């Protein structure tokens, strides 16, 4: 079954630093905008939830029709890993987030990477897509 999945890393000032469509559904032009819109709308909810728990994985925070938003907040509360998906698979998503988090830390430790700037590394992109195929 074709699935929709859109993964975004949002940094300081709600600025996206990495985006990818990792679902298997055929791409539609207007879908990308819709996904961004839903994810952006759920940022407010994230902001409220983030202080109520000290777990990083916030699970499902929002939904829009049949699209669900899962969020993972790293130790730096400004960095949020957000996934828009249409299948319920909590364990897979959790593992996906944890592995991407580790990848993100590796990127961050690079002294030439400025925290909060766009992640342009093709290696990072490839690894995220591999993880998405594995877990989602």
């Amino acid at each position, binding site marked *: 079954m074709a699935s929709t999945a859109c993964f975004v890393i949002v940094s300081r000032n709600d600025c996206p630093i990495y985006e990818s469509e990792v679902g298997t559904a055929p791409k539609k032009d207007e879908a990308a905008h819709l996904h961004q819109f839903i994810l952006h709308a759920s940022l407010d909810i994230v902001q409220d939830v*983030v*202080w109520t728990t000290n777990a990083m994985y916030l699970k499902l925070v929002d939904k829009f029709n049949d699209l669900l938003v899962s969020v993972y907040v790293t*130790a*730096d*509360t400004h960095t949020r890993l957000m996934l828009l998906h249409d299948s319920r698979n909590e364990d897979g998503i959790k593992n996906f987030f944890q592995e991407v988090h*580790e990848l993100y*830390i*590796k990127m961050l430790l690079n*002294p030439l990477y400025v925290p909060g700037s766009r992640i342009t590394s093709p290696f990072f992109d490839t690894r995220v897509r591999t993880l998405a195929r594995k877990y989602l």
Partner: protein
Amino acid sequence: MIGVGRSKQNLNVVDRPLGKGKTEVSLSAFAFLFSELVQYNQTRVDNIAELERRLEDAGYAVGIRMLELLCHREKGNRRETRLLNILSFVHSTVWKSLFGKVADSLEKGTEHEDEYMISEKELLVNRYISVPKDMGAFNCGAFVAGVVKGVLDGAGFPARVTAHFVAVEGQPRPRTTILIKFSEEVLQREARLG
């Protein structure tokens, strides 16, 4: 890329393991590097405040990375959401990882509710540094203040952090106190969380 084997050179950062962080660096190598950092910045500023700000910025970049790394490595991916917890995280976990020991003391300011102090008898970065008289109250601990600021700011506790020398009776060298003054919003949130 001197001394790096070919196979490692070809591995991208995402393919290398994160490491356990148990390795230590030689103190002389660090002291040399730090002295170069101070000298480099000193030639590029007009006044002491600017120099302190530059050292703080350098520390900030370290702090923001340490927070992310240590929460992953030592805390098993738990975040800190409470003020006292994040302070003790800085005082013990961060200090241990950076300096090999916990900080000498962590106190709450007596005059203001929003002030906390971390004191260190002999701060590692200040061990081989003596400040000339004409530089006034300049303290290279500004770098460490920057690290603390980076950790706190990253975790969502914005604060003004400064380093000061405090004379101790019967000691030839003053101790360094890192003064942390939290923003208003942090205390408001803390009160709301109860």
